[in-house]
């Protein structure tokens, strides 16, 4: 069990419309493979990954909860917003409706989540717009500039990615993680004040850190 050497544990949620590729992004991150034709996620699924942020010299453990995009699970998935430090808001660049729904998703997240939550807008499936494939490329319906603009207006990070090719997937998580680490440095999250962030001294892998985490919240 020597694998538990991390400085921070960050809880992430992945959200967005159905079939924009949330589960595929997560599987690409954790298993480095492309999940073709997955079944729709029921409720939530968990996946985790250790990443290194070299400039901070920190090892970060990402705990990701991949939520269902289907409306019927909305009430269940909301329960996860509150405890998250980071959020991947995903849309499909070849499907305008999924981009437009982002406004609603964002409102939902802002309503339920920690105000300091870091949110990154991810335009997925850019591989479909590249035309080198034999089959006719699907038309891009959301230009990158538009996504960028929306992200700026709302104060979100922005990246376009592809779970199929792997392009920018890890980068998306890393950028969000860097942002959160910066917030921690600035003291925004204080000492374990957010349930989405846990710190650790890597050698100390006992229950004490959980107790520390709980002490901060027991009088809410």
């Amino acid at each position, binding site marked *: *069990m020597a694998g538990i050497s991390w400085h921070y544990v960050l809880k992430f949620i992945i959200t967005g419309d159905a079939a924009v590729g949330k589960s595929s992004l997560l599987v690409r991150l954790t298993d480095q493979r492309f999940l073709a034709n997955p079944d729709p996620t029921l409720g939530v699924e*968990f996946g985790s990954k250790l990443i290194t942020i070299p400039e901070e010299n920190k090892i970060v453990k990402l705990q990701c909860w991949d939520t269902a995009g289907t409306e019927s699970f909305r*009430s*269940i998935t909301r329960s996860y917003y509150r405890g998250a430090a980071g959020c991947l808001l995903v849309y499909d660049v070849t499907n305008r409706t999924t981009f437009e729904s982002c406004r609603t998703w964002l409102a939902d997240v802002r309503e339920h989540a920690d105000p300091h939550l870091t949110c990154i807008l991810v335009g997925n499936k850019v591989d479909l717009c590249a035309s080198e494939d034999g089959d006719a490329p699907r038309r891009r319906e959301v230009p990158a500039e538009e996504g960028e603009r929306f992200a700026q207006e709302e104060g979100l990070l922005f990246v376009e990615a592809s779970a199929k090719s792997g392009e920018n997937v890890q980068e998306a998580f890393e950028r969000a993680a860097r942002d959160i680490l910066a917030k921690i440095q600035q003291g925004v999250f204080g000492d374990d004040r957010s*349930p989405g962030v846990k710190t650790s001294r890597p050698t100390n*892998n006992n229950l004490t850190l959980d107790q520390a*985490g*709980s002490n901060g919240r*027991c009088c809410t």
Partner: protein
Amino acid sequence: MEFLSQTYVALRGPTGAPQTALDTISRLSDRLSPSTLLADRRASVLSLKGLARDHKRDVGERAIPGLLEVLQNDAELDADIGKAVLDTLNHLCDTEEGSTEVKELGFKHTDRVLADEKATHKLFALLAADQTFYTRFGALQFLSTLLRNRRQIVQSYFLTAVAGPAGIIAVLEDRREIIRNEAITMLQSLISQSPEIQKVLTFEGAFERLFNIITTEGGIDGGIVVQDALLCVDGLLRFNASNQSYFRETPMAVVLLSLLQFPPNLPTHEPAPQQFALQFWDTQKGQNAGLVIGIIGMLVATKGANSGDLSPFTRCLLEMALASNAPSTLKTQSLRLLPINQSLPLSDILVTTYIPVPETNGEEWDRLEPTTALDALVELILNGEYSGLHSTRRDKEALELRATAAGVFESFVGQNDIRLLILQAMIPSEDGSAPPPVTPLLQFLATPPTSPLNPASVVSTQLAAILFAHLLRNSFRAKTLARSIKPPGAGFDAGQGSFFVPADGQAPAPPQPSEDEDDSPQTLIQLLNEHLSLALLSRSHASSSDREAREWDRLVTAYLTLLSQWLWEDSKAVREFLDAGGLGILVEPVNQTSESDVLVPGLCALLLGICYEFNREPGEVTRATIHPILNRLGIDALMGRITRLREDERLKAVSPESTVLPYPTSPHSQPGLKPETTGEAEVWFDWPFVDFLKSNYYTIQRGIRADPNSLSSSAGQTPETEILVASLKEMMRNQSQEIESLQSKLKTVLTEKEQERKALEVQISQLTSDIQAANEKRQDVEKEQEDLLVLLDELSSKRRRDKDRLREAGLEVSEDEGDEDEGEDE
């Protein structure tokens, strides 16, 4: 109280006439509306609480909407009314006590409370927001009741409750023990069968809270609270892959090992520490540890791919089962949970076992030399726990442990290579220099039964037979190897602990001691044959005691099941068995007419059938010899024996999970048998044999009917494949004949050639010498000729001189010759 009486006075009305309860309830219910004063509402609730005890139906009918409203509006503001309304509602919905009618009412009221999600949401909100003891406690109890009655509805409401997860976490963190314990109880049913709730709570940190409780309560030494908390952990993880992958990566997975005192970072070559191996155990600790082991087993089972190294979890289970003083049930559980695959290095890892020092009541222990885990496992199976110290234990736990261990052994030797290695180790080395090894397993099979029977050795022999069958089953190569095993001087004691009791001194050791055939010990089949015959004989003499007869029956069963599985599809082994006189041994029990005894005749008939079916090697006893014997016994009678065997309770009760049966199973057949100790159990068959029997009895029955000249109809072959096999065999026979004839032809041709060559060689040498002789002769002749020529020359010159002289002398000389000569000379 003043309030109460005032209310009553007010309600009684001006007439003073006694009111019916229904009237009172209606009025009290009306007073629950928000328009009245809080104090009035409080009084009404308290009154209704009292009335609910005797008038559950009426209060439920009238008051529930009002009470729910009070719950919604007042419970949080006023602790007293909160407590009262929660108690009343809880009582109305209670279905635990009373007649079925009252229980029905409870369900009906529950349905009214759960008609919409508001009440449930409020309850969770109270948990999250209200610190008041009675409010929290009442809400938890009420939720427990609702969950008990209509779990799925409450669960679906929980998922939509904004405060749901936070409420649960809050009560799990409550410092007041009663609240916390009540929360754990409620949590168990809340998470039951709902993966979504399990995941939400995992996200909110339920594991961390539960482990906090477990560690602060003293780990597995803690009481029932720890048990309940562990049940929650188990409930959150079981059948929930998402939560398992979360949990496995948290430090808490390692805490599980620490709870059992097992060091998580123990290097493979280091022994487990004593504080893990030797602990004081009581019932509660056993139950807590059992839950921890269950969770570890779950993590181990789903570990999957990366099982290259022995994980500390697997090691912990292994040590727990083989080298600790944990209760037998925990050891059995650990063995069941061991992930059996070939990467489990049973024969590489060393374990250090302990045995209790006698008379110290388990407080002092002797440490034994480290052995491999495989040896420790076999030792446990054959001798029981603590090196045979408890080998006479016949209770269910002890036998269950040994039978489960035998199951682990079976899975371990599932791979052909491993069983061949084990068998190879039993075979004497080829040059015969080293003494043939005596493994404990072989020892028990080779040791003849002694009369009177030692009950402990019956179990050991049974289990040894089962283990040996595991080594042979379905492997032709293993059976071939096993045929060459010759246990050395079966009788002598190879130091097998306190176990092997030479009851009558050395004398009865091998039935036919090595006097006649000093240098060739018997093969295992021959030995088994003899032991079987001896056991059958002793059994018929042991009729004085039913109990002893049953012991002999079990021993006979052990030998017969092993032989059946060995001889199946192994015609060479059948040959050996028949040559050793096996036929005669089997015929007698089949022929006996006892009605009460089903097992032994049935098994004998089965083995007889196998012998007939697979008697395919040439030898003294052929199929044609056996056939008339089968006919004399009666084909139908044999069928009947096998069918009745299959119907025997002792066989039918065996399943893959349970081998150990209560003593005596099918008690009606022998009413005189009583268990000697409470919980006495017995083992007759293991599942692989039952499975073997079920899949093959039909082939055997059909084989018994078959003509002695018919072809073998081995298991599982369809007519088509049989025909195919037959035609292929035919073809092979033809081809081999052809090859044979060609070979002989080739041989004759070769010898002819050889002879010819030899003759020629002789001729050549003859000729060479001839030539040489001729050459020599010629040379002689040539030389002679030369000499003659020289002589001739000399003569001619002399003649010329003579002629010249003659001519000088004026004598006439013939010219012609001289001319010629001169012409030649020139």
